[in-house]
């Protein structure tokens, strides 16, 4: 069975990635592993889902008829955590949401997406939310 790992955050980027992952899973009759990770080094991280958001996600995905597994984790690098889950479930595809950024902006800000693109052993699909 095809396994699709999606890097998810409770915002528009996460939603776009997740929607595409579900679509791909339907197409290939596969399953989806949702990864939500944080560095956990700040008091507040809005990209880390709380229990309510995870419950809402599970309820939303329950109706899709696709096997979904939600994982939350904490570690030094968010990209590495997505990659380690991908390795663990031997993913066939990783879907991530991408921000629009200029080359200079990219230079200044570290990027989870870049880490995943460079480190992944499987195909990576990067999607952008509808503008």
């Amino acid at each position: 069975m095809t396994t699709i790992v999606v890097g998810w955050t409770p915002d528009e980027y996460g939603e776009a990635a997740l929607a595409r992952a579900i679509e791909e899973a339907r197409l290939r009759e596969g399953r989806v592993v949702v990864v939500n990770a944080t560095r956990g080094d700040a008091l507040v991280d809005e990209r880390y889902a709380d229990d309510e958001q995870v419950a809402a996600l599970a309820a939303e995905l329950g109706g899709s008829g696709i096997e979904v597994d939600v994982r939350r984790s904490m570690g030094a690098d968010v990209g590495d955590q997505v990659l380690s889950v991908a390795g663990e479930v031997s993913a066939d595809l990783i879907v991530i949401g991408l921000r629009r950024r200029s080359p200079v902006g990219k230079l200044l800000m570290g990027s989870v997406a870049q880490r995943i693109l460079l480190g992944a052993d499987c195909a990576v699909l990067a999607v952008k939310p509808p503008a």
Partner: protein
Amino acid sequence: MDSLNLLLDGFGAALTPENLLYAAIGVFLGTFVGVLPGIGPAMAIALLLPVTYGLDPVPAFIMFAGIYYGGMYGGSTTSILLNTPGESASVMTALEGNRMAKAGRAAQALATAAIGSFIAGTIGTLLVVFFAPALAGVAVKIGAPSYFALMVLSMVMVTSVLGGSWMRGFISLFLGLTIGLVGLDLNTGQSRLSFDQPLLADRIDVVVVAVGIFALGEALWVAAHLRRSPLHVIPVGRPWMGRADWKRSWGPWLRGTAYGFPFGALPAGGSELPTFLSYLTEKKLAGRRGGDDEFGRGAIEGVAGPEAANNAAAAGTFVPLLALGLPVTATSAVMLAALQGYGIQPGPGLMTDQPELVWVLLASLLIGNFLLLVLNLPLAPMWAKLLRIPRPQLYAGILFFAALGAYATNIQAFDLFLLLVMGLLGLMMRRFGLPVLPLILGVILGPLMEFRLREAMAISGGEVSALWSEPLAVVIYVIVAIAVIAPLVVRRVRPAPAAVAADIEESTEEEKVR
């Protein structure tokens, strides 16, 4: 109204553009450190001490006053939006405040906290204006034995009444007193606890102790617990209140002020007790009114009262600080160290020796309070964003200033070693739950206390009974005895309050000293 004229002169001196700028910096910095749990105004002032030695005392203290009040305000923001009280005095605010925020009334909770703080802080500071000179007038006449007794009272109260555990409090106090002893005996020139180290014989600088315990200790502690599940901050717009909220808030504000100020003004103050009492009173009153009792679901009275009590107590602590030279909070202890750094002798003589400093300070407290209100009401959403700062970056900055400050006081590399030792001590204290305040109080008050003791002994020719030769001293020792015995008796007779306190302590994730 002599005091009022002096206060007006103070306003005249404080209202220069330069001083206003320092007040604004202080208020900003104070709110910044108050919002972030783990770092507070005491740490901020300790870090700034070496920087401010280049300034005149007046602008430095204007800034410190802003930091003190700003820290208080910032703490309430965090408690309300995140339910992590930044300091023990905000625990009560967090109870109802966070429930209000969850019910979508964060803007009103922040508004009642800010306006209540302003009102309580203003009334409290005005009361300081009237009480402190009177108290100082009496205090200049009291002798060394009574003075010594007052310091004993202050230490015993801070150590036993405020903390959860007596044992931990006294361990911390004696650690502080021991650190305060290190160095040359001022009377005989003998070196004590210096282990034949000429650098230690110079006495350990208070700045190094304060920065080590507060900043380095906290940084090491955070480094040991770097990754923790992040929380979600409740989104909030600009704070505001409707007419009904005003109507429900003003009573608790005034009652909270009435609770807070006396507790702060006692040479054994603290704001845990008055905020707790204010909360209980408002809850009881709401219950008596019956009907729409919102307590437990986010009652605005439960935010307004404790928050006012908190700030009134903070204002009240200036009475013993200015009139007696007795600090009762970590922040005022560090301010006392700052006074000493300028070579100003804290004590009853302060009001007559340094009238300009005192009155400008009091005026700038009122100004800072006003600045807090006008700056922070619109800026609340921005303060909430501060909570996203990653800890490594934040503490790297703090460590930089800590090392710079410890080195800059004496330009002595040995101080950096001492800083590390103090930092490790601070880490161990956090690990074993020892409160920091008694230690700082011991370090700062210890030498002053010894001085008074020596003075009393010198006058009496070494007769120990001289210590209780003054009626005032005897009265104070009786109070100390009551303060020590009463809780024991109460606990035995009625274990209920302890259980309530334990409940509250459970909701405090981490206690931060003010």
